[in-house]
């Protein structure tokens, strides 16, 4: 319970707040301290501060070791991080550690090798594993599996922030009246905690799906004020601008420099090649 604010902020995408909340915690048991570190260092990773993580984590629990490997992975040493992780998992004790499995899942999911990732995570005993699974099922266009996994999460803790968020992801995939429900979820979470960029972006996505691109654009611009480096915000802004008949060049170049492998950029690049291919096919 002591870690609630750390975790909750982490899940809501407010990483700095998570780190700050962790700093205020006192009198934790060893186990709690380890858990706190697990989230704090992951928050650092999410902020892009990989070196801190690598420097600070020295011989400790396997979970933290995995986090360190995650940081090295993002620093670019992908293959070595992966093989080290594999070595780590060779120990049967570690192989059943959900925290380590999660990191393994994240790495493989990040490589878009979802089936490999699911090998580690599909048993999904924790909310985080489930949420990751849902994400991957949605990526694989298997919303029915995602719904199933969501049921598992709801059995564990229906009111948990992560469950709520995952519910919104699934709802967006299902479409129709579920979009409205997703929108309510983002709204509710923001009222309960605060408007974080991911929440604003989520709400904006709902607006987009409801055809309300004006509202979406406003929200996205607000989100951009909070964090001008959020790739999804930029990506959605591009789509909104297209729908509103506005220019997208600035957002596009911003996004390109920020995250060149973002799905939206991928789509743009793919579109041009596909167009050429299709032209050739038409002869």
């Amino acid at each position, binding site marked *: 319970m002591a870690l609630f604010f750390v975790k909750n902020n982490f899940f809501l995408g407010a990483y700095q707040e998570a780190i700050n909340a962790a700093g205020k915690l006192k009198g934790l048991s060893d186990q709690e301290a380890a858990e706190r570190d697990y989230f704090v260092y992951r928050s650092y990773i999410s902020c892009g501060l990989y070196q801190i993580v690598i420097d600070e984590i020295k011989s400790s629990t396997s979970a933290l070791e995995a986090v360190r490997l995650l940081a090295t992975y993002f620093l670019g040493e992908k293959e070595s991080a992966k093989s080290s992780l594999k070595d780590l998992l060779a120990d049967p004790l570690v192989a059943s550690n959900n925290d380590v499995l999660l990191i393994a899942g994240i790495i493989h999911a990040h490589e878009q090798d979802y089936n490999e990732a699911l090998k580690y995570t599909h048993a999904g005993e924790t909310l985080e594993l489930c949420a990751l699974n849902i994400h991957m099922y949605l*990526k694989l266009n298997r919303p029915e599996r995602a719904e199933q996994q969501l049921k598992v999460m709801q059995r564990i803790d229906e009111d948990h922030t992560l469950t709520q968020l995952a519910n919104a992801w699934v709802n967006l995939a299902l479409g129709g009246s579920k979009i409205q429900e997703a929108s309510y979820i983002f709204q509710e979470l923001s009222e309960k905690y605060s408007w974080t960029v991911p929440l604003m972006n989520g709400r904006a996505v709902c607006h987009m799906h409801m055809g309300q691109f004006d509202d979406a654009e406003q929200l996205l611009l607000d989100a951009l004020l909070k964090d001008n480096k959020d790739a999804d915000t930029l*990506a959605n802004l591009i789509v909104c601008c297209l729908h509103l008949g506005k220019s997208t060049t600035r957002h596009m170049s911003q996004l390109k420099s920020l995250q060149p492998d973002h799905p939206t950029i991928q789509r743009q690049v793919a*579109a041009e090649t596909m167009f050429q291919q299709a032209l050739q096919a038409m002869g």
Partner: protein
Amino acid sequence: MLTKFETKSNRVKGLSFHPRRPWILASLHSGVIQLWDYRMGSLIDRFDEHDGPVRGVHFHRSQPLFVSGGDDYKIKVWNYKTRRCLFTLLGHLDYIRTVQFHQEYPWIVSASDDQTIRIWNWQSRTCISVLTGHNHYVMCASFHVKEDLVVSASLDQTVRVWDISALRKKTVSPAEDLLRLTQMNSDLFGGGDAVVKYVLEGHDRGVNWASFHPSLPLIVSGADDRQVKLWRMNDTKAWEVDTLRGHVNNVSCVMFHARQDIIVSNSEDKTIRIWDMSKRSGVHTFRREHDRFWILSGHPEMNLLAAGHDSGMIVFKLERERPAYTVSGGVLYYVKERHLRTYDFATGKDNPLIAIRRPGSTGMNQAPRTMSYNPAENAVLLCSDVDNGSYELYVISKDSIGKNDTQEAKKGSGSSAVFVARNRFAVLDKAHNLIVVRNLRNELSKKVDAPAPTVDAIFYAGTGTLLCRSDDKVILFDIQQKSILGEINSPQVKYVVWSQDMEAVALVSKHSIVMATKKLALKCSVHETIRIKSAAWDETGVFIYTTLNHIKYCLPNGDSGTIMTLDVPIYITRVSGDKVYCLDRDGKVRTITIDTTEFTFKLALIQKRYDRVLEMIRSSQLCGQAIISYLQQKGFPEVALHFVKDERTRFNLAIECGNIEVAVVSAKEIDEKDYWYRLGVEALRQGNHEIVEYAYQRTKNFERLSFLYLITGNLEKLSKMLKIAEMRNDVMGCFHNALYLGDVEERVKLLEKSGHLPLAYAAAKVHGLDEVAERLATELGDKLPQIPKLETSKLLLPPSPILRDNNWPLLLISKGFFEGAFAEPGVVDQEEENAPDAWGDELVIPSGDAQAGAGEAEDLEEAGRAGPGPEGEEEGGWELEDLELPPEVVQSQASAQSSFFAGITPGAPVTQVWTQRSSLAGDHVAAGAFDSAMRLLNRQLGIKNFAPLQAVFCDLHLASQSSLGGFRPVESLTYGLERNWSDSSPPNVRNGPALIYKLPALEDRAKQAYKATTEGKFSEALRLFLSILHTVPVIVVDSRKEVDDVKDLIGKSKEYVLALKMELKRKDLKDEPVRQAELAAYFTHCDIQPSHIRLGLQSAMGVAYRCNNFNTAAQLARRLLDMNPSQAGIAKAKQVLQACERNPRDENRMNYDGRNPFVVCGATFTPIYAGSRSVSCPYCAARFVPEVAGQICSVCDLAVVDADASGLVCSATQSR
């Protein structure tokens, strides 16, 4: 009299209704007792044990018993369930006339020609009392319903009332039972048990029948003196009240009606007569031609009578029980007794509205039959059979409501009358075959000939129209236009029921329902064996109706079924949700709650509202075999799948709908050879060879397995099969596998081992294994076979398949609504979640992988055990397997979870759904299916040059998805943006992508372009119009009207592009003034806005004038003047005109004739005059001279001129 049932038989002497079932007993003069079901009209049973006529018969009130008495002096008690006579009571010494059970005690009273009445105890089977006193045949005797009385009638001309209270007291106190036996003798001579209370004298011939009134102290009797007498009694005496005269022959039977104040009698004069009890006069006479009546009987509960005559019997009702009613605006209007009442469905308030004429005062069946209500004027039309059909019109004024005084009605004759407009009603005049239209003052407004010569009823059909019944058809007739709008065949229609929106009508006849649209197009029909009584539509379009004993439903497609059983008939007035409002036969409004599950489910299924279906399945409101077979029969095995728990049925359904996943799970549960085999067959059909392999493994079907490995090119496993065959000592199997593998040495070895040395030698020799051949040759010695020389032989090696990893590619199936939606609570998913998917391992992970190896090993181990090979060898096989495993995978096998994971096949992305559902280029572009989009555009619009569309394509695709962080830092989730979102649309229903180009935006762009044109920014305008033309191919609109708007936009843009191009070209041509003049003149003939034409005319006029073509300039000036130009324009035009008219001729020849209509070629900018040949662009419809055919259109720069194309498709409504 309304005859409900009639039989033909021998003379009927006795009758008895069953108190609850629709049965009647008829005892015949021939000695037979018949048991009839008068509702179905069928003979249920016959009892033939009496010798001679059976005159009396009676059902017991509660036991499955009846009693009969006949001319064989016997009283028989029967059990109709076991269908046999239980016992016979003997004692009477002559014919027995009547028998009757007591209501309460186990007694039977019988009347006999031996001048006695006897009371029997049918439990002890003894006679407990003999009533003596009559001194002639006793014709009838019956118990009083409540009191301890018996009434009897005798040919001694008396009616006697007997007091049997002493008898009752004796039986009630059993202590006196013994005494009774001793008293028996004294009873015989008029002992104290039953004493005559009254002797009613008055008839002057023998009395045939006497019966009590059920509640009043009255007796009615009928005698051979042809009279019916009414008697009254009190505690001390009884006296004659009145005599009813009318019958012209012996009265055989008479009784009080149980529900009405009337007396019913029948007679040998072949009539049944109805008498008013208070007025004591005949009300009605029903006559038969040839048959004398002998017996009457009333139903103890219902309003039914039966009468027996010389050649059978009839079951009948005296009056209709169906109240006249109608529903209007949530209020039921109905007639009860002498009031018109209203019942508000919403509030449940029931109020009398006005008093109407008292029915039935002058005869039977005079009550209103039908009602028509006019909500605008608050008027009611009541039709009745009075005077062979008449109507009464009541206009209900506000202040008369609730008052009890009878309203004065406006009356008229006519067999049916209905309102046809606010202040008009139509009456059918059958005699003259006319439909008479009257106003609310009952004044004639017009007369119309009926649409057919035999119209005998008219029904409401909306304002100004009527449904006319004629023979076996119904005609929809417009009274104003006197025209027939439609007709439909239907058996004699009794009621017409309109759906609430007046879109559908049900024509209800006695045994069938015909459903039709409002134009009388047949939708479906339903036949019922039981009479249909009433019906109503519910809000969802389900038709709910009642028969005599059921409430049933009928769906729009004609599927019908029973909702519930009824004890008594009811008349449905309205159905709302699960509430059925109805009137019962007492005219009371009742509400019945029905179970709507079945039909709403079926309805949802028919309407393909799968979300609703799903919801119902989830809340498991229904189940059972019936619904499963219904689903299967209707072609929804995939839905049925979700109802079934039984694995075998699940398996069958899964196979039927090709759902391999479920089939596998079920097959695992069942684990029987036959099921594995069928799974294998289905998987093979689908080309899912990994499942095939699995199924073969489970059934140990080695031959098939080997062959499967051969065709899938899995040589590794094939060699394993070889080893297994070795272990099993299956030589033939080994040989096969070796052959498949192309392993000659193995084959030779096998042949040698099995002792076929010549064959082995031949094989070795042919394949050039010389060493072996030599060795074998020495072994064979003389028996060395001759090997024929073959020139062109070659070694057959198994072909290596192109695709050999994993499964063959399977078609991506977008999951059906149910498959996806069901994916959580069902049995399957439990399985998937909990069970480590051993089979799954096999499927997804490549064969070299550890999981596959492990799974494989297990299976092979199993296979090995099945074989007869010794233990040791089996172990050997295992070791081999282990060696094959790549080392690094062994490690990963150690990690617990990973080895259990099944792997997930990606589902169909939403973009695929979009393209599958749509043939609109825009949808395909958004989905990123550029190639198919291009093919579509090529086919539809003849577009060949796609380069100008690149930006549009890319932007559209780019804007097709939103992205959301999801589980960070994994790559963001993307969701397809769809158009036409609404809060109420169900999940998982795809609408097609939301597109960024919309018609209004393009129209705005066109306005900008007009403005630019006006301002003379021609290149800007041209760019805008071209951009419109380059966007329209991917536009998608919702309605047909918008499609026309789009086409209009294309046309306008094309004209402007052409005009602007000419204008720009003209500006380039500095040195060719004549050509300039031509182009300027052509400009004015483009179909562009008048203001632009005016501007064009001004400039063309100037150009023409400058190159001295005054005639042309004058022409242009005149045209300009006709077009209301500005003041400056007028002045200038007049100036030019003046100048030109002085010298009206052209200095230079121009290819321009302003008076001859023409279009301008988009490529050469030359006129194509009407009548000359031209070709056009299939997309923008620009016209060209024939030489241009086959080139890219120079106007739109997209399509090939004169190419074949099917035309613009930009809305889903076009393909519907």
